[in-house]
């Protein structure tokens, strides 16, 4: 089955980049293991500026590990991984901090700070990274972002008082409040009802249109992929096995690819 799936041609991607596309993330032949468990194998991809790239893949194939490597949460063992043209592994502490302030990361688990209210959660990075001290400015940004995720009433709640879907949306709010240039969404709609799911997908689209954000969206949700994707990659066993637009891949006659699109 693996042979049937066509390999992604990195040379071709590189060529396209040279033709005027600017790539904000470039990954070449990256490998990553945890002990004996080799999770990423010779993985290559690029993220063009301003595009929404959807990654599909079975559970446990290393999707989360891939984007964690991009922000230096995990260190890859081999290969090249450049974000904004800089090799992530070789960044100093200060450079890493600078890079991270331009990259938003939505955790699969939302990762809200339990000991703080929603407002404090949202203010946390504003105060410490953007160094905003003016309370009126903080309030304005917090209410604005809460409205865009549809939860203006949750402002003084503790994370433990929120439902799973609400936590996810607050996690999203905490990420987009920093107005990043690259967004890495780890399953933004998993666990949400179809209506909220659609709203979040449209929010991701509008982030791209409004702020020219480049995004990687990891998802199992085909409806979300349909709304958000400009281009899609399919991952299997630690490497990418297919690339194309939603329409191209959904019409593919390959059985493995088709299995993602079946309802």
């Amino acid at each position: 089955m693996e042979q049937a799936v066509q390999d992604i041609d990195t040379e071709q991607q590189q060529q396209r980049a040279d033709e005027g596309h600017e790539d904000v993330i470039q990954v070449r032949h990256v490998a990553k293991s945890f002990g004996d468990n080799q999770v990423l194998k010779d993985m290559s991809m690029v993220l063009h500026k301003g595009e929404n790239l959807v990654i599909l893949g079975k559970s446990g194939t290393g999707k989360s590990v891939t984007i964690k490597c991009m922000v230096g949460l995990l260190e890859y063992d081999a290969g090249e991984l450049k974000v904004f043209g800089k090799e992530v592994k070789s960044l100093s502490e200060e450079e890493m901090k600078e890079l991270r302030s331009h990259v938003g990361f939505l955790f699969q688990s939302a990762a809200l700070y339990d000991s703080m209210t929603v407002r404090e959660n949202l203010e946390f990075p504003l105060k410490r990274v953007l160094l905003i001290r003016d309370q009126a400015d903080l309030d304005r940004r917090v209410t604005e972002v809460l409205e865009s995720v549809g939860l203006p009433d949750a402002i003084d709640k503790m994370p433990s008082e929120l439902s799973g879907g609400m936590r996810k949306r607050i996690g999203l709010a905490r990420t987009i409040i920093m107005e990043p240039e690259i967004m890495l969404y780890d399953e933004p709609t998993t666990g949400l009802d179809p209506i909220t799911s659609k709203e979040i997908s449209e929010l991701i689209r509008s982030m791209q249109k409004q702020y020219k954000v480049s995004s990687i969206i990891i998802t199992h949700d085909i409806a979300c992929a349909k709304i958000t994707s400009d281009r899609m990659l399919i991952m299997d066993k630690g490497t990418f096995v297919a690339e194309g637009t939603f329409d191209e891949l959904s019409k593919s006659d390959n059985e493995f690819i088709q299995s993602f699109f079946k309802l």
Partner: protein
Amino acid sequence: MADASTFPLKSIFEEAGNQVIFMGRFFRNLFRWNFEWEEFIRQCYMIGYRSLPLVAITGFIIGFVITLQSEPTMKAFGAESFIPKMVAISLIREICPVVIALICAGKISSGIGAELGSMQVSEQIDAMEVSGSNPVQYLVVTRILACIIMVPLLTLIADAVGFAGSYAGLNLSQRVSPILFFNKAFNSVEFGDLLPAFFKTIFFGFAIGFIGCYKGYNSNRGTESVGIAANSAVVNASLWIIVIDGIAVQLTNALGY
């Protein structure tokens, strides 16, 4: 991760190395300009104020029990009038610092270990890091400093309450004027008794905060690792306290206090 209960040599050295590295991170972040005052004060409250009842009760009972236990013997030697002095010195120099530190290891170190451990498991620490803020500065520096300050204060409070307990114990069998008792107790305590004990408790405080943070911050994925972090924080912090106490006794003797 290595645990005090497993004893392969390699993992012991690995663990020691990791602790040294973590200590380095603590000191490097200690002297950054944007100190987290708000969180520091919150931690002082959580660590200090919340432990007060436990520490006070413990101090009182220690003073009370030591007095009752020593009274018959002292009486046999006709040395009852030395009881305040003996209790004061033994409380201040040794018993209160060590007992309070061990209690704090149980309460504070395990609390910090569990809290940071669950933050690690639920990716909250990763989230702080990835947003570009500094989790070591926010979580670790504030907690260790709060312990360094609050554990000595708690010990002093336990000393004072211990005197009261001792007075109560003495009063069970005989009437003693409080003025006479406290005069005797305080007159017998010298600066040379208080100072080394106080220094010792600063190190106890550091050990309690540091081990709690280290174990929690470096806990593995998975919910069971929160329990492991809390548990090994208590075990290791207690061990550190005993070792520091042993070193402190040697040092104070050598320095002639």
